[in-house]
């Protein structure tokens, strides 16, 4: 398959006219047509004729670094003229009058949109079961979840329905499905990529990031989408490094910290085994492994679920059942639960004890992460405590569902970047991933470590059987 190649390889093939963008777009639509009915990775597919017109244009003149490359978007990003639902029937008939900044940047960079990916409604979920458009199925085992909330995007990349996807990570929504579907996903530093046009789940935690087959592809996409946006006051003016050029930064001597709290009880034995192999690989590459401690990690989940639900109760207030045509009754049970919890946390009389206290806890976590950089350069841990869950495993017990986010939410609370990478498989052939966590705005180091790891292993080249 052409879409097995990296973006850099595709660019070479395209510029030497060995392949055309039309070939890529045809292949992507072919995969969507063949596999999407089984997997529910898309909510809306763009009119193929339009995409092919874009492809022909790219074939006649190169538009940018991603010229002619097909991609897809989590349905959390508004697209002018193309239905955008955020995974919820509340927005079932919403055709946005504008496009998100990230979409504009990618289109200006020459990339070609294929469609909009399924997701947990409003980002509310880690398994992609909380969607009104059919639970997303894991292509490695369709009796299991794909992870969420950017599940559709992870599946689209894993099954070559696109070269890359744009996910959205509020508490692990890019990393969880990436690790469950054996793809790479980057949660960027808060402020690195504009959120303008990203339908908000929890504004102080939401981040816009790429999902792709490898760290080098992620570097390619990040170079196009990163940077200041006058329409997003929280976007950073910090210069965007040349991520691609920094990939081959030598790894030797890098101090890789492993928070001991990540390896405490609750970790699946297969995840532990894979993780120990990963540690050995990094050691063999010349990294210095150090054990570190972030004592307040245990509080990250309650802190996260107070702040995220408070913000989402506010953000979803605009869907009043009048302006967008669909009733609030259509909010799912999980979304209603989060609205109610958040409303309660902000209520006079409880506000100080719940919301304000959580923001203080968040500050403590930020300080603890700051301190950790004295002893290491990067952190390494598992992405999820378990292999991909079976459908329904977590949906009956919200607390269990929330605890699945234990390793992913701390970086959203602290604003740090984190790269999830494919790291191996369980005995049943289920993907298991790891995540690297870096200093603020140091995506370059994360990507270079990911790149070194991918050269030493071949997990990221594995494809689900349904593709063969």
């Amino acid at each position: 398959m052409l879409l097995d190649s990296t973006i850099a390889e595709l660019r070479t093939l395209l510029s030497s006219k060995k392949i055309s963008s039309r070939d890529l777009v045809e292949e992507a639509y072919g995969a969507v047509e063949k596999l999407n009915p089984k997997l529910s990775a898309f909510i809306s597919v763009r009119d193929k004729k339009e995409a092919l017109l874009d492809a022909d244009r790219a074939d006649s003149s190169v538009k940018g670094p991603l010229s002619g490359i097909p991609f897809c978007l989590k349905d959390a990003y508004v697209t002018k003229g193309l239905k955008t639902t955020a995974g919820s029937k509340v927005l079932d008939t919403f055709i946005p009058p504008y496009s998100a900044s990230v979409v504009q940047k990618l289109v200006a960079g020459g990339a070609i949109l294929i469609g909009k990916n399924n997701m947990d409604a409003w980002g509310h979920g880690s398994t992609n079961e909380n969607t009104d458009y059919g639970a997303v199925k894991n292509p490695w085992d369709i009796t299991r979840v794909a992870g969420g909330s950017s599940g559709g995007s992870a599946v689209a990349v894993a099954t070559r329905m696109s070269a890359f996807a744009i996910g959205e990570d509020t508490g692990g929504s890019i990393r969880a499905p990436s690790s469950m579907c054996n793809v790479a996903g980057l949660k960027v530093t808060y402020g690195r990529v504009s959120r303008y046009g990203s339908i908000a789940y929890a504004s102080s935690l939401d981040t816009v990031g790429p999902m792709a087959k490898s760290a080098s592809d992620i570097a390619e996409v990040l170079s196009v989408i990163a940077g200041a946006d006058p329409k997003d006051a929280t976007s950073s003016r910090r210069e965007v490094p040349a991520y691609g050029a920094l990939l081959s930064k030598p790894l030797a001597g890098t101090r890789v910290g492993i928070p001991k709290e990540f390896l405490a009880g609750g970790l699946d034995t297969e995840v532990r085994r894979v993780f120990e192999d990963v540690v050995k690989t990094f050691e063999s590459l010349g990294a210095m492994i150090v054990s570190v401690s972030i004592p307040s990690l245990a509080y990250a989940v309650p802190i996260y679920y107070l702040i995220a639900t408070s913000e989402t109760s506010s953000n979803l207030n605009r869907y009043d059942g009048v302006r967008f045509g669909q009733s609030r009754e259509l909010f799912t049970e999980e979304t209603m639960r989060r609205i109610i919890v958040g409303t309660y946390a902000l209520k006079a009389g409880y506000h100080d004890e719940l919301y304000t206290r959580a923001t203080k806890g968040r500050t403590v976590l930020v300080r603890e992460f700051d301190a950790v950089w004295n002893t290491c350069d990067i952190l390494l841990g598992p992405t999820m405590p378990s292999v991909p869950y079976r459908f329904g495993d977590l949906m009956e017990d919200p607390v269990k569902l929330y605890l699945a986010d234990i390793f992913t939410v701390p970086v959203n609370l602290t604003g740090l970047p984190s790269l999830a990478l494919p790291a191996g498989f369980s005995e049943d052939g289920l993907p298991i991933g790891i995540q690297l966590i870096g200093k603020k705005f140091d995506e370059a180091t994360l990507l270079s470590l990911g790149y070194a790891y991918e050269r030493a292993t071949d997990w990221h080249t594995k494809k689900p059987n349904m593709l063969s």
Partner: protein
Amino acid sequence: MSEQKYNLVCGLEIHVELNTRSKMFCGCKNDPFEALAPNSFVCPVCLGMPGALPVPNKQAIESTVRLGLALGCSINRHSRFDRKHYRYPDLPKGYQITQYELPFCYGSSLQTSEGPVRLRRIHLEEDTAKLLHAKNKGEESRIDFNRGGVPLMELVTEPDIVSSAQAKEFGKKLRNIILYLGISDADLERGNMRLEASVSLRKEGETALPSYKVELKNINSFGFMEKAIQFEIKRQTALLEHGEQPAQETRGWHEQTGETVLQRSKENAEDYRYFPDPDIPLIELSEELISKLKADIPELQSAKVERWKKEYGIEERYGTLLSEERTEADMWEALFIVLKKDGISVADFVKDVSNKKTLFTAVSSVADIRAHYLAKKSADAPSPEKIAEAVALVISENAKAVADYKAGSEKAIMFLLGQAFKKLQTKLGADLIKEEFLKQLI
């Protein structure tokens, strides 16, 4: 029982739409009154579309801080915007972006003839859209978002106001300062300045705040505010005299009936679930910016009236009359400078103007007014005979000055002129008097 038994306890909440180029959190034009059609100055941000984000307007923040500095308020160096949640069709996000715990300005007071009125805070928020309610059955109510998201400054006073006249005086003074700063058109009729008074009564001698307050809204002139407060004093006094406690409620002023009418009961405090807007970073106001904004504040009316008194001897009541508007005051002052050079009493001129003895059209230029005034004055000047008589007398009475003049002293002629003015009891016709001296002293 007499009405003297109860004293007014009144505070004001004044909303002012700022005249910035663009809206508070987006690039849309801030000009709702000039829009050709409803919903023409709108975008995803001010329509509250999914995914849209607010970016605060620097000019609006600076205007608010300038008002705070002009009023002597303290400025919060670190400030932020908060979300205030409620549902109403004119509020597309389901929350209003406002400032809760950290307003840009706080403290200070504004002096009135009945004592100072303390200022609690001045903060910045976004205006709501305009609802156009259906007039007839079967019609739809409509929403015009041209006004939605316009920068709205809110000033809140402490409940220090003791009379309806003081409320009116405070409002007028504040409006005057806003106009001097040029930060808003402050047009009450159009609603870009909105007055709300909270009114309650307490027994004379009591110092604690009453346990209720009535908020008065729908007031679009200072006169109506005065009347609404007066009406409320009567209404509440009657209730209190019957041993009833007035209800905590919002009442609207009805111009036609001259009464306030219940709009909404406020027995239960609403919970707005305020929290810091995560879409907007904390706002830091640097020392540098604050000093720059301070330096930009023009001389305000009260200072100008004071200075005119010192420099030109203009009586306060006349000075106040001529300085209501900053551009007009500047025009008058340009004239004062010229008249003073002409040796004409500015104080007398101002008195004449104020008492409408001298009338000008609004478009008169400084030169026109001066020419007009001088011509009129020369008509009132003493006759040539009287001048000749007075000059002869002065010459005969001041032999030394005459000798000095003949020896070439410029001062001496000024002295002699002065003596002649005294004799004639006017400075008018100064040129003629001087000529007469030159003629008689040859």
